[in-house]
């Protein structure tokens, strides 16, 4: 009621209309009249001092034969229902019908129409139609639908009323997809972030994973490569859970699937499930968080709508190394060799030859990065979709094509992806059955140079390792060569290709049986079949002497076809029962079900060499060395799950989940695990004392929520060899060995120990959060804090090498992740000016708590108790040594350092070398005692800021994204010149230490120096990899409907958009700051520069919708 509302008003002869305005002003309550029998211009005398609203209203209606009700901040005044009045009411009653739709004319089945001041309510049917019988001819209808702004309409004697609801941009009333169901966002107790289709629109994203960067608080996405068809960004939800697999579990419409083959245009919504409460229903797959993708579907009773979205644009690299020219290289090489006591390679006259270009064959001056890269490469995307529905069937059909060409010359790099999707939903078959059939087909070609694109080879890495003295082509027009690295331009152009063709079919069919009003059965079968044929054809390239034409060098002397076939089949089946019970203010939802997943992969490979033709790479034309390989693996998972949601009056919210999961991966006795979670929330704004408080009128929504639960972490995603899918079975596998009797023999051996006791990694997670919406939902704010601890981590406990075999994992060690996330949004519209902002900031502190009592394995990326996983482990440094740091022997003239050095370097340390810090103070630097944790590769304080502005037909948006703190480390030829023959200087190395340049950045140059002094991982080499990036900027113009509607065009928008246009960072100018890869479990991820660069993309596109 209205106890909280008070007002003060003292006035003589004031009209009722004036009083009603004053009520609105002071209490926020509207006054509505359902009768015109009140003379609103009649006057009374009033004198209220902090009077209750009821007191005011009593005074207003006094003696007028009126009554009033207060509901939802609305005061409805109507006539006293005398017998006469009741008769009059029947006389005035009318029937009202109409249709409720959204902005786009899409029907909103289930929307409710409430007649204010009465108990009469109607619900829109599947066509969005409602019917109200016998209501007052001037009643007020309140029309509401989840996710839309409630609208109030006066009947005004109309009998047909069509109502359009506007989508609620704040999302507070949104329904979000959660595990095995949906939930009203306002009633969520778990930690779930969502985005919808409009967050991805108009951006030149090539994969969904990179498109998600910066959009979802708690999700860290690190772009790994700009290569066409590359696997997209590396995704981590709330840090690194495990020392092993930290990949989130991704489901598309309920089916586990690769995120990156999806057509971004098909996505309706993305839910990111972050805490134990929201993920534990996925049990052992959920420890790293879950991403749920829902694809678009049609609407019932909607005319067909056809849309086309397309763009065309160009890509450019964000950063490239700047290599030095030949003369500078030769001078620095000579300097390095002299410093190392090795005779200089080049004479002054040779340097002069390089400088004046008089010998373009042997003393060329090639800027290889200019030669390897094209100025830009095109990228285009086209998507067509058809959507609509009849009264019992809705459909969505789409086709998308993405064509991205690579930046390397020779056109070997590129990808083409074709996506087709059909989604059909049949509703209420025999009144009780819904069917959802969802078929997707993806055809994807990814092509690259056969020389691969790896850390240690291929076209891009070779740009760093080839001498500028080698020409691209000799003066006779044939491929240039100069010893050492092969010519990357020749390889990119003539070296052959590596073409992976993937055909992927994903299909699911789901049935929902509405047994009773509040009880339904659901079942879903899903299939992901993806087959890949990969052909690697490596062509022979002969490099000929420019004078004689004799062969100088041949790369890949036997042209080789390596054909590989991968057959992957993943099947899932889930069945569940849903129950719902609403008793007054008690709302209960429950579900229980089971889920199966089973997978089989088959692989074979055949290789032949010496092909008759370079142009027809088919195995039958290979003439020599046929070899073949084959392999397969399988696994199966079975789980049972249940969930109960209860709320009282949408105010006190509770949820509990339970999952019982089993896997084929572990021994029968340790196969199953139980994973419960619970959560609770309190929407304090539903409490009357807040609801009715004037002081808190600005507070529209507020909720505090908390959750705790247990999750499991799956082993097999970490399996490096297929045999490892069964770590409890000691297995004997094929191993390579030496030829015997002039044939290649095969060997068999056990390569990994078995561990029958291995079981799930267990994750415990606590989450607390507050959600607020202020100023009529214009401002939204969420803050979360969580503590996640992973125990029984599967760890290869390093063993002394006498054990002689790789050890299996053991359940040892634990890791904690404590983090927070902030999310702030503002949305408003001032007449025709629409604008909104959203900002996100999050961080997670990762720490190894235990390693199962064993010593850490010392490596550059170490796992050390008390420090982040894979922290950089190396030497502290004290800058470059200067002459003053040495004592000169008066007799011999030899310099001896006054600072600690590695004993083996004695006699070889000179001014310009790095000074290491002697941590243990024993006077010498040693690998075992003087290394410590010096940095953390995981990005911290990841943030983003998005804004959108719209005025009339124009829309503009920008998206800034960045990382506040990260240590980057680049190794190998990417940063160190001359440590090998194939390591060349860059412009940044001009600033190296010499007696004349003692304040230089780079130490004195040395040739092939493997002393302990220079290239060790040391604090000195870590770089600040924080950055701020203009991730996207977009400007659009929608052509006014009046000009185009006669051609059945519903919407026509043209836009300009750019990704990664601008980056601000202190990281090496030569490399993108995202190049650093957070330390991962597998492999040495410290980058040495051998990668396809990140790209910036500038596009122009259109959005067209026909009706």
């Amino acid at each position, binding site marked *: 009621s209205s106890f909280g509302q008070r007002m003060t008003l003292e006035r003589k002869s004031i009209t009722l209309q004036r009083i009603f305005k004053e009520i609105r002003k002071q209490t926020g309550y509207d006054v509505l009249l359902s009768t015109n029998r009140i003379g609103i211009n009649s006057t009374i005398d009033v004198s209220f001092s902090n009077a209750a609203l009821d007191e005011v209203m009593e005074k207003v209606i006094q003696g007028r034969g009126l009554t009033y009700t207060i509901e939802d901040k609305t005061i409805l005044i109507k006539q006293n229902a005398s017998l006469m009045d009741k008769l009059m009411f029947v006389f005035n009653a009318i029937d009202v019908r109409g249709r409720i739709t959204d902005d786009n004319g899409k029907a909103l089945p289930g929307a409710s129409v409430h007649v204010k001041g009465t108990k009469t309510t109607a619900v829109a049917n599947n066509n969005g139609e409602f019917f109200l019988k016998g209501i007052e001819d001037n009643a007020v209808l309140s029309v509401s639908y989840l996710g839309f702004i409630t609208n109030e309409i006066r009947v005004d004697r109309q009998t047909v009323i069509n109502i359009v609801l506007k989508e609620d941009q704040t999302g507070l009333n949104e329904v979000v997809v959660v595990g095995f169901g949906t939930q009203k966002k306002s009633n969520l107790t778990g930690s779930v972030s969502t985005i919808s289709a409009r967050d991805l629109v108009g951006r030149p994203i090539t994969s969904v994973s990179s498109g998600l960067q910066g959009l979802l608080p708690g999700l860290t996405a690190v772009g790994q490569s700009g290569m066409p068809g590359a696997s997209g960004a590396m995704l981590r939800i709330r840090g690194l859970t495990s020392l092993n697999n930290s990949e989130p579990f991704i489901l598309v419409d309920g089916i586990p699937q690769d995120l990156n083959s999806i057509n971004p245009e098909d996505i309706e919504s993305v839910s990111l499930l972050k805490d134990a409460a929201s993920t534990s229903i996925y049990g052992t797959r959920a420890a790293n968080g879950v991403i749920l993708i829902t694809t678009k579907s049609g609407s019932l009773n909607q005319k067909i709508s056809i849309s086309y979205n397309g763009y065309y644009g160009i890509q450019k690299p964000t950063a490239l190394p700047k290599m030095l020219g030949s003369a500078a290289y030769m001078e620095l090489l000579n300097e390095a060799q002299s410093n190392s006591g*090795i*005779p200089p390679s*080049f*004479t002054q*006259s*040779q340097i002069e030859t390089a400088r004046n270009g008089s010998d373009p064959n*042997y003393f060329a001056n090639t800027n290889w990065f200019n030669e390897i890269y094209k100025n830009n490469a095109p990228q285009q995307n086209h998507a067509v979709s058809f959507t609509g529905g009849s009264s019992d069937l809705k459909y969505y059909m789409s086709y998308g094509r993405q064509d991205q060409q690579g930046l390397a010359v020779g056109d070997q790099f590129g990808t083409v992806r074709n996506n087709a999707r059909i989604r059909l939903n049949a509703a209420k078959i025999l009144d009780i059955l819904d069917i959802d059939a969802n078929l997707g087909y993806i055809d994807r070609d990814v092509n690259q140079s056969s020389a691969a694109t790896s850390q240690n080879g291929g076209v891009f890495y070779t740009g760093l390792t080839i001498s500028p003295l080698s020409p691209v082509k000799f003066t006779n027009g044939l491929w240039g*060569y*100069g*010893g*050492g690295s092969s010519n990357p331009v020749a390889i990119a152009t003539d070296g052959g290709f590596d073409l992976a063709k993937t055909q992927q079919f994903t299909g699911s069919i789901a049935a929902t049986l509405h047994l009773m009003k509040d009880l339904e059965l659901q079942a879903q079968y899903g299939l992901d079949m993806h087959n890949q044929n990969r052909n690697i054809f490596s062509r022979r390239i002969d490099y000929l002497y420019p004078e004689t034409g*004799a*062969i100088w*060098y041949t790369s890949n002397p036997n042209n080789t076809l390596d054909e590989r076939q991968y057959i992957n089949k993943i099947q899932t089946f889930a069945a569940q029962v849903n129950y719902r019970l609403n008793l007054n203010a008690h709302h209960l939802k429950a579900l229980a079900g089971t889920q*199966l997943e089973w997978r089989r992969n088959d692989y074979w490979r055949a290789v032949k*060499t010496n092909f008759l033709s370079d142009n027809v790479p088919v195995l039958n034309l290979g003439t020599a060395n046929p070899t073949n390989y084959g*392999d397969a*693996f399988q*696994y*199966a*998972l*079975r789980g049972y799950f249940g969930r109960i949601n209860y709320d009282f009056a949408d105010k006190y919210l509770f949820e509990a989940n339970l999952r019982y999961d089993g*896997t084929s991966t572990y021994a029968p006795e340790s196969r199953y695990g139980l994973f419960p979670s619970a959560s609770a929330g309190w929407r304090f704004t539903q409490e009357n004392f807040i609801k009715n408080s004037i002081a808190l009128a600005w507070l529209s929504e507020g909720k505090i929520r908390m959750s705790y639960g247990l999750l499991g972490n799956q082993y097999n995603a970490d399996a490096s060899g297929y*045999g490892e899918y069964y770590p409890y*079975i*000691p*297995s*004997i*596998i094929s*191993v390579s*060995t*030496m*030829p*015997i*009797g*002039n044939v*290649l*023999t095969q*060997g*068999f*051996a*056990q390569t990994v*120990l*078995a*561990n029958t006791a291995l079981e799930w990694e267990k994750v415990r997670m606590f989450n607390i959060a507050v959600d607020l919406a202020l100023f009529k939902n214009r401002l939204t704010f969420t803050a979360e804090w969580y503590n996640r601890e992973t125990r029984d981590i599967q760890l290869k406990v*390093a*063993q*002394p*090498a*006498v*054990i*002689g*075999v790789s*050890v299996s994992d053991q359940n040892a060690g634990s890791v904690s992740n404590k983090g927070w996330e902030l999310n702030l949004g503002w949305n408003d519209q001032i007449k025709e000016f629409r604008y909104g902002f959203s900002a996100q900031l999050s961080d997670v502190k990762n720490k190894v708590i235990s390693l199962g009592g064993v010593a850490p394995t010392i490596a550059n990326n170490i796992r050390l108790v008390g420090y982040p996983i894979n922290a950089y482990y190396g030497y502290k440094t004290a800058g470059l040594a200067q002459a003053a740091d040495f004592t000169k022997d008066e007799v011999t003239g030899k310099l001896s350092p006054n600072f600690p050095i*590695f*004993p083996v370097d004695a006699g*070889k340390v000179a001014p310009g070398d790095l000074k290491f810090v002697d941590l243990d103070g024993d006077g010498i630097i040693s690998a075992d005692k003087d290394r410590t944790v010096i940095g953390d590769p995981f990005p911290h304080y990841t943030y983003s800021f998005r804004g959108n502005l719209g005025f009339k037909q124009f829309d503009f948006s920008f998206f800034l994204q960045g990382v506040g703190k990260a240590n980057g480390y680049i190794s190998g030829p990417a940063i160190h010149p001359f440590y090998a023959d194939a390591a060349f200087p860059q412009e940044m190395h001009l600033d190296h230490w010499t007696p004349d340049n003692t304040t230089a950045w780079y130490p004195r140059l040395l040739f*092939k*120096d493997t*002393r302990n002094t220079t290239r060790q991982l040391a604090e000195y080499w870590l770089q600040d990899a924080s950055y701020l990036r203009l991730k996207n900027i977009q400007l659009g113009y929608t052509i006014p409907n009046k000009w185009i509607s006669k051609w059945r065009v519903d919407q026509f928008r043209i836009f300009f958009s750019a990704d990664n246009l601008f980056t601000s960072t202190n990281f090496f100018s030569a490399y993108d700051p995202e190049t650093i890869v957070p330390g991962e479990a597998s492999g040495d991820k410290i980058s040495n520069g051998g990668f396809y660069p990140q790209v910036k993309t500038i596009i122009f596109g259109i959005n067209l919708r026909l009706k």
Partner: protein
Amino acid sequence: CSKDFLDRQPLDAITDVSFWETEEQLKLAVNGCYAYLKGKSETLQDSYVDLERCGDNIIYPPLSDYLSISTGVFDYNLPSINNEWVKQYAAIRRCNHFLQNYEKAKGVKPDLLSRYAAEVRFLRAHYYSFLIMLFGDVPLITKTLNIGDPEIMATQTPKAEVLNFVLQELEAAAPSLPPTYTAVDSGRITRGAALGWKAKVALFFQKWDVAEAAAKAVMNLGIYSLYSNGNTSTSYKELFTYKGKITNAANKETILARPYLANVSEHNLSRESWVPDQVSRFSITKSLVDAYLCSDGKPIDKSALYSESTYAAIFQNRDPRMIQTVLSPGTAWEGKDDGDQDSNPNAIFNLPKWDADKKGTVTGTGYYNLKYVEPTAVGVYNKDANDIHLLRYAEVLLTYAEARMEQGTLTQTDLDDTINKLRTRVGMVQMKITELNAWGMDLRTEIRRERRIELALEGHRYFDILRWKQGSLLAEDVKGIKKSLVPAYNQVYIATIPTDAQGYLIINSGRKFVEPKNYLWPVPLPQKDLNPNLIQPDGWK
């Protein structure tokens, strides 16, 4: 769904329980144990021939783990040292696994079963022999270990005990091994390999009588002879080309090799030797060149035949093995442009090249290697299929001679049966004890010289320096040719290379060899970290 839904098996592996049943399975498991034989690789633990770089016969000046070891500038964190340790124990584990299980197989003919076991016992002893030669005391593991077994954290077994085990195992394996195999099995371990390796190990550890007896046993097998094509000027070098592969029936000299196979299992040795646009990775040192006797049987400082007046003169009137080991003027090569004044390719080598203009192979010392170079494999990367000889009959003969000499029982007849056979093959004058005495030459020095010369560049030299306790040789500056032999037009390229008092180029200096520390490798740092019970050898503590 069915109850066994989760009962699945790997599809690509055989379980340890169901393996070890058939003869074929045993054979495949034996084959797996061969995987760790050293051959040619850039990684130290996988290469035998590259171990030559740890000695004083060749040099590749840019730093590497090989150079660190050879110059004595390395610590217990040198990665290659750990790699060697890890590799050998991986190999030993595989052998132990076989030996623990092979008797489970059914229906295997007893002699085949014992042959398989003997092959593996040989291999295990072979792998252990590298551990004791390089590390001294090492843990002796003869069964498969599991996490938690106390042996994992045990300290080292004394070297003498491991040596005993190695010698006994070789002795025990020999009778079950066939003297020869049919073509399909050529390359497998023979009785001669077991006895010959035993002789080699015994010699390393100065068990002269054991070495002598084992060498004699190989000689008495009567199946080995020195490889010859009838031509004294090509027989020796031909052994290190494709004609000398162990599968070639005409090669009755090679006892143990790591075979290679074209397009299947290949290495890069020939290209590394003569890479025609870079520096040769195997530049021969002055030290080795000077070790070759003159053709009169006298060393260069005693022989009237020796002249250093020109580059070509150095190669004249020398032990004929010299020009079959060291590239000499007038020899066909694939190194393209040599050190002549023009920069055109030369089919015939005449002068060492110093100019890094990428038109031909640059030398590090003034010399190039010829031995082991397969000219057809120079032009392409990693396309060399030369076998790497780990043990050949010539070494057995040298071992016999040295073991007899050390016991004071060496006779002229012994020399004629051993060293003089090697000399006959190449047309070198015979070694006569009387002449040595007359010329004031020391018999031990000459026996050792003969071994160095005959086995040069094959990977044995570092081990010989260690066992002869000649570590001081590694501390000496590495030198090349006389600076004055370089033509004037090439002087610009070597202008900054220092020379010694006699005018020889000093290629590498600042070397050290700490006695006795550097006669053993230290326990690798990662192993010491994981097992503190391991004890560093003297000098490394």
